[in-house]
């Protein structure tokens, strides 16, 4: 079954490379460049996996994650939190808010594709 992925990332170039590698792996990919748009897309499309950057404009990644985990209809979305900070505190926050996976930038292409596919297979 095809995995649907929403990439919430304000860095256009990263989003583009992510889209390319995930689509080549067979995923259906959408992209949102800020937190509010990401939340709207998630509510509208209910993707299998959300690749969520922490540092997003308008609504940061943690706020998006918190909202997703508070809305029953969005509970099934698997969330992979992506951060350029890589600090242990970010990881703890992500875990506490209910993230399913956590990766730091710069990521490894094969690793992130494998993780997205793993999460997609569980939904």
């Amino acid at each position, binding site marked *: 079954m095809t995995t649907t992925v929403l990439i919430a990332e304000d860095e256009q*170039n990263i989003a583009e490379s992510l889209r390319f590698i995930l689509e080549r792996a067979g995923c259906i990919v959408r992209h949102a460049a800020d937190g509010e748009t990401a939340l709207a897309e998630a509510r509208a499309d209910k993707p299998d996996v959300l690749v969520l950057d922490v540092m997003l404009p308008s609504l940061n990644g943690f706020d998006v994650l918190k909202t997703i985990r508070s809305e029953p209809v969005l509970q099934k979305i698997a969330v992979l939190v992506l951060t350029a900070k890589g600090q242990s505190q970010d990881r703890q926050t992500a875990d506490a808010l209910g993230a399913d996976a956590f990766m730091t930038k710069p990521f490894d*292409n094969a690793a992130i594709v494998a993780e997205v596919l793993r999460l997609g297979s569980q939904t």
Partner: protein
Amino acid sequence: MPDAPIGHIIRNARQRAGMTQTALADAMGVSVSYVNLVEHDRRRLKGTRLNDVTKILGIDSQALDGETEGKLLADLEAVTSDPSVADLSLDRAQVRALVTQHEPWAKALVALYRAGQRDQGLIAAFSDRLNHDPVLSDSIHDMLNASTAIRSVTTIYDEGGDIPAAQRDRFDRILSEEADRLASVAQSLAGFFERAERPGTSLTAPEEVDEFLYDRRNYFPAIEEKMECERAAMGDTVIPSSGALVSRLESLGITLRRSPLHALPSGTHRLTHYDRSTLMLGEGLPRSTERFEIARRIAEKSATDIIDAEIDSGSYLTSDNARDRARRALYAYAAAALLMPYDAFHAAAETKRYDIDALAMDFNASPEQLCHRFTSLRRPGSEGVPFAFLRANAAGYLTKRFPLPRLPMPRFGGACPLWAVYAAMQTPDLRHRQLAEFPNGDRFFILARATRPVASGFGQTLPSYSLMLACDALNADRLVYSDGLDLSSAAQAEPVGPTCLLCPRQNCAHRQEPSVRAG
């Protein structure tokens, strides 16, 4: 009480003079064994015998007052108390031998220890900056994002496979953009570190000034002489009148004005404002403060060259911040020298037995100004009582400090809560006297007094302080404040300490943190 080791100075001077112990003993009229005991610090020279030795050996009496050695001992105590060497079980008895037998090595050890402390402060400041500076944080974020995009695209290229031409063009553009971005971030970071100042330097400036003043025993003869000339030019009176001070100020091109405190350009928490051509004094200031401010500005105009020369000679003053602080301290010193001329002040202090209230009336000076001046009475041949001086603010933080060799004072934060300087805050205007005994047996007579907070208007409370003078208990009978107190060695003294960290009194109810010293 234990004395600073000076026997080695006598021994070295005797050997330089080519004298045997027997010859020195004969010249002094004492036994050879007595000379031997003195040279090994097992007897203390006093009075005429001390004078005899200085004359026979041709050495300065100040070289035998033990201040330098006492200060070095206290500094080495701090080194041996440092937690980083706690495991070495350093023998404190050997510290004394280090001072007497290898003084340059002892000084080197203290210098290296201080350099280490300074560097630790610097590292902490840089670490804090690295963790919290927004410029660095943004740069690192940009760098990680750029490298993420570059790494991801190059991996796609490495893996090969079919990439449509349009997508390949797009990836090429991403690599170019992100490479430019990385270069820009790198340039920005390089500029940031070039602009970065040494944040730790300001942390040591007060310490450098302390060392400078202590090294000069807080006595500056050239400034005394210069301000004596200024005073003489103002008229015949020993103590310059307020009218003479104002006239001299105006002759130097400075206009004096008075203003409500709240209207001062420098804000409500300052008492005066000075812009090099006008001195504005807040209305309601004590007369002593007014006189001191005027004298300070006179000194700034008339004694700049002399004070700059003193600053330039201060080897401890390594930073601009420290030199500025030292310069301000010396202008205040010059002001005090003008208002309280050395000879007159020393004579009055000795006659009135350091009675602060009596001297305050004689010299139109505040208690704090008097306490400061007491510490500068160190002219060879007409020395006053050697005093340590402290000023603590309402939070208990030590805002001014002038130590004595055997009375170490903490460089940061507060001291032992049992010192009278803190008790004085609870009852402003009362004089607190205390015969204090330190853990090593040293006894000091302490006098403390806090000023009552003064408000010049609603919401305009001026800072209040507690002042403390301390002298060796042996000198306490020269102070009027010791009258009626039993100062004998059998007298009950209050047990106090230096700071909790350095105090071995483990069972003290006032302890705030564990001691690094064994009981």
